[in-house]
């Protein structure tokens, strides 16, 4: 017991009591009085539990922060500057081995996994795309975009409405939706990006909501809350439906019995390829002048301007690229669901994508991929806890910002071998 000599239990008890009292005030009405029509039913049990948890938790925390370990930890948080690591110039990434392995396993998935698992993995990959897109905007360029779901919606509705009105299929809409989303990003971003960063957050928040409102209210074009159906991708003109009006279907062509799993396999394979393409492009971008400019802008905008960088255009490029990735993801989402309606594009969706980026670590590609799978696949598995999802995201964001603002995966930077200097 010699370590705990320094712990002032009286102080901890007072801390705990104060916290308990506050918890009683906060939780008392909202948790303790369950509204029921104009009356209510008392739920004091829940309040007692929550207050007890707060009191105990606060007591333990207060004691812990008085121990040597706790003091050290508190100090580390207060001086939170565990920066990135610069790799040595001749660093060999282990990824050279891991990536082919992952690709191989990934290609096998559709042939071994059940249809249910496949749909979950597709959803996971869609969120990887979304996470990568937002990661460029938030993680690299440091711009908080809270309306990312707007671009996602543009992609998804682009496919559905493009098919309905113009007869455009999956393959033509895939690039068009990316361009469309980028264009929307440019229109929204150009006026706003020259302003103070916080305004961007609220304007994009509004943008996401406006897109949803338009999708809901403009019923003559979008069919309002009823939604629109979206086409499936085709393989050189072969359709993945049970029967086709105007062409051959996949199973007829190959003389197979019809199985709805085929379409998911096909979507999965395309999506898998697109995710790798995006991963590759992003990997290149961060090493390129534009990627360096994004990060520099996140670090210090004034210094960037003094070096001749047009901060608005640099930000706009990040914003547009992020948006177009969101648009791509939207097309996949629409084709995967076969149907889109406005309720898929609420603010919670934006929050989920932001949570992926935050958990994965601002700017870390690997982190985003892992986080996307964790945050989409885990809730699928733990369905009983589904209603706690948003609460978890919220807690995750606050805790991560206090504890590890740079995310779980440490950001590394490329090292450069020394060479002979020259000015030409």
């Amino acid at each position, binding site marked *: 017991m010699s370590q705990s000599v320094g712990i002032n239990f009286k102080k901890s008890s007072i801390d705990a009591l104060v916290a308990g009292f506050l918890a009683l005030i906060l939780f008392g009405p909202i948790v303790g009085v369950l509204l029921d029509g104009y009356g209510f039913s008392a739920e004091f049990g829940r309040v007692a539990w929550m207050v007890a948890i707060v009191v105990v938790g606060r007591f333990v925390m207060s004691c812990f922060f008085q121990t040597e370990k706790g003091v050290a930890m508190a100090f580390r948080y207060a001086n939170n500057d565990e920066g990135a690591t*610069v790799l040595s110039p001749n660093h060999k990434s282990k990824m050279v081995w891991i990536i082919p392995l992952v690709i191989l396993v990934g290609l096998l998935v559709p042939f071994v996994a059940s249809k249910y698992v496949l749909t979950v993995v597709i959803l996971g990959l869609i969120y990887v795309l979304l996470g990568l897109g937002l990661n460029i905007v938030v993680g690299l360029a440091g711009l908080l975009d809270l309306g990312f779901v707007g671009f996602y919606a543009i992609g998804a509705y682009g496919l559905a409405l493009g098919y309905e009105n113009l007869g455009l299929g999956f393959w033509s809409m895939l690039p068009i939706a990316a361009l469309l989303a980028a264009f929307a990003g440019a229109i929204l971003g150009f006026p706003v990006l020259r302003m103070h960063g916080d305004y961007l957050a609220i304007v994009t928040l509004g943008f996401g909501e406006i897109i949803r409102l338009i999708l809901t209210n403009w019923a003559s074009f979008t069919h309002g809350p009823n939604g629109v159906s979206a086409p499936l991708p085709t393989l050189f003109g072969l359709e993945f439906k049970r029967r086709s009006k105007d062409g051959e279907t996949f199973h007829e062509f190959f003389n197979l019995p019809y199985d709805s799993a085929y379409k998911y396999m096909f979507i999965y394979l395309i999506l898998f390829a697109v995710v790798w393409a995006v991963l590759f492009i992003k990997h*290149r971008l961060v090493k390129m002048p534009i990627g360096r400019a994004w990060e520099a802008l996140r670090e210090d905008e004034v*210094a960037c*301007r003094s*070096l*001749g960088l*047009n901060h608005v255009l640099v930000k706009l490029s990040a914003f547009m690229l992020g948006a177009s990735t969101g648009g791509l993801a939207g097309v996949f989402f629409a084709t995967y669901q076969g149907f889109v309606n406005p309720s898929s594009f609420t603010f919670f969706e934006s929050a989920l994508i932001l949570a992926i980026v935050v958990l994965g670590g601002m700017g870390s590609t690997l982190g985003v991929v892992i986080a996307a799978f964790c945050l989409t696949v885990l809730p699928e598995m733990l369905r009983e806890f589904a209603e706690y999802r948003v609460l978890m995201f919220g807690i995750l964001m606050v805790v991560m910002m206090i504890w590890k603002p740079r995310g779980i995966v440490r950001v590394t*930077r490329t090292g450069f071998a020394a060479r002979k*200097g020259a000015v*030409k």
Partner: protein
Amino acid sequence: MSQENILKVENLVMHFGGIKALNDVTFDIKRGSVSALIGPNGAGKTTVFNCLTGFYKATGGKIVLSAAGKETSIIKVLGEPFQVSDFFSPIAFFGRLKYKMFGGSHLVNRAGLSRTFQNIRLFKEMSVVENLLVAQHMRVNRSLISGILNTKAYQKSEEEALERVFYWLGVVDLVDSANRLAGELSYGQQRRLEIARAMCTNPEIVCLDEPAAGLNPSETEALTKMIRVLRDEHNTTVLLIEHDMGMVMDISDYIVVLDHGEVIAKGGPDDIKNNPKVIAAYLGAEEDEEVTL
């Protein structure tokens, strides 16, 4: 270029609400010179720099930079408000609209003027090399396609940029720290890195805001040598703000003294040393009291 003065500042005025930071500041900087802007704290020196580099939009006056073979009006590139006459002349209108939409302080740098900051502003989370690469943004191959495909032309451009990086690291004696984070460097190293970063934009004139602040005497000595290298080997005009009078008198060809937002004296080091107004401004002494700097 025949133009003898690289920078012309005429009747510069800068007000912040009620605060009159600059009243009527006029001076010229000769091409190829080392000039100094001195004055007591709060005299408005940094404000002059911020107007020169386009971070503050001057309330009035003219700043003309003759570099890169052309004359640039710094007030204009920041985007001026529309005038009534613009609405009758489409050319003037679109000219102004262009600068309103795409103008800004970055154009000042592209016109050939770069700067450092009094409170060091490095990209702290990026490595030293990356700091200098960012500064070359306008000089490298920025094409997205060739970058993603990693073409020969792109590789060559990046290699050249890295060579310039290591050249400047050599000049400021930071080659050994090339792969450290900029935020981890010591204060003196950060000051030097900031100068190297400013030089990487290939400027014709560089403005240094208190480069010797916080340096020890031997570091200041090294800095003086470096500034001479900038002028003699790179034909760069240097304009600096400095409080270290020894250093200022040592390297400057020309000195402008500012007090309460006004130019109270300008001339060579010897003129300034003996100027009673300057002495009074610095020491708060009566004008007729004898003081030597």
